Structures are given as structure tokens and as C-alpha cells.
């Protein structure tokens, strides 16, 4: 969605206005995608430890691929959890 002015509330079938999500790694070039930086990776996993999909975080395809491999490496090195149990 492009940034558009909010639509009128009279027609409920119209799509609601929302802010466009942007890829954080494209915006902030210095932000590392690195298994050694678990504090960054933590923003892209759920509280159960699952990898968040692109549609939620807004990460671009290029960076999402890198992110996924780095999250998996960080899990191997016990820096972030595979799962979080009750």
C-alpha cells in the first residue's frame, strides 16, 4: 500500500488505511544481520522463538533470506532459543 489519505468510514468494504511497513535493514544500513547480534534478531522472532513472516515485519525478500539463515545459526549457538516452553 502506498501512503494514501485515510478513506471515509462510510463504506465498510473499503480497505482500511494503514502505514506502509518498510524493511529495517534497507532503512538502516548499519544494522547488522548477524548471528552474533542476537539483540537484533530478537525483534524478528515471536516470543515462542519462531521466525516472524515478512508480512508482519515488512522485511524485504533479500534481507529476510539472510535473516532466516542468521537466526538459524544463532539458534545453533544457543544465543536465541529454538522454542520457548511454558
Amino acid at each position, binding site marked *: 500500500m502506498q501512503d494514501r489519505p485515510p478513506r471515509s468510514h462510510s463504506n465498510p468494504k473499503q480497505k482500511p488505511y494503514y502505514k506502509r511497513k518498510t524493511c529495517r535493514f534497507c532503512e538502516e544500513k548499519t544494522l*547488522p*544481520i*548477524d*548471528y*552474533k*547480534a542476537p539483540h537484533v534478531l530478537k525483534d524478528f522472532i515471536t516470543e515462542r522463538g519462531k521466525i516472524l513472516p515478512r508480512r508482519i515485519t515488512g522485511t524485504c525478500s533479500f534481507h529476510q533470506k539472510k535473516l532466516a*539463515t*542468521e537466526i538459524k*545459526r544463532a539458534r*545453533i*549457538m*544457543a*544465543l*536465541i*532459543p*529454538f522454542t520457548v516452553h511454558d
Partner: protein
Amino acid sequence: MNLYEIMFILNPDMGDDEREKMITRLKGTISKNKGDVIRFDDLGFKTLTYKIKKKSRGQYFLMYLDGPGSMVAEIERFLRIDENVIRFVVVKLDKHVTRESLEPKAEPQPEEAPAAQQEETGA
């Protein structure tokens, strides 16, 4: 010759002598296989997010190497045999990462910049 990054976790209950011996043997394996240690960092003790081999803590080490691909297989074999190695990860660094950017500097965190660009993993 390629650049590699290796991170490994050692048993926290290991004695200092034992650890030193293990590290010198690891470095020996590297030099024997025509590898070169660019940087060796002790990241200290960290709490593991989940228990491995009934341990909840580990000693983290990070090293950067320059060497042929055949060296990696030998290092992996060595790390797999040693019982004090809890986990390890080998990452082949991207072609445009230079050796100079990995060399130790005065600042405590120079690894951030090159580490963002990686490809391919072992282990």
C-alpha cells in the same frame, strides 16, 4: 584461499590448562593444514538459552581464519572429536570481505561491519 569465521562453545567446567592445551592443538591443526589465524577472540562466559549436554553456561570463542577449503574439514573433525566442545559453527565469509578488515584493532567491536555479509555454513 578463503576467509572463514569459526565460533565455538567450550565446556565451562574445563580447567585453564586443559583449555590452553586444546586451543594450541586447534591452532596446530590449522597451521598443519596451511591455514592462518587472523584473529582469535575470547568472548567469555555466556548463559546458553537452552541446556546443551546438561550445561547451562558456556565459554564462547570466535576466530577468523584464512585457508583452503580442505582445512575446514580437518577443523570440523577436530572440533567434533573433542568432548569439551559443546557447539561450533563455521561460516565462509563473503568474497568482498578483506583480510585487513578482520585484523584485531584497538576498538572492542570491529567484527560488526564485515560480519553482516556472509554466505554458506558448515555444521
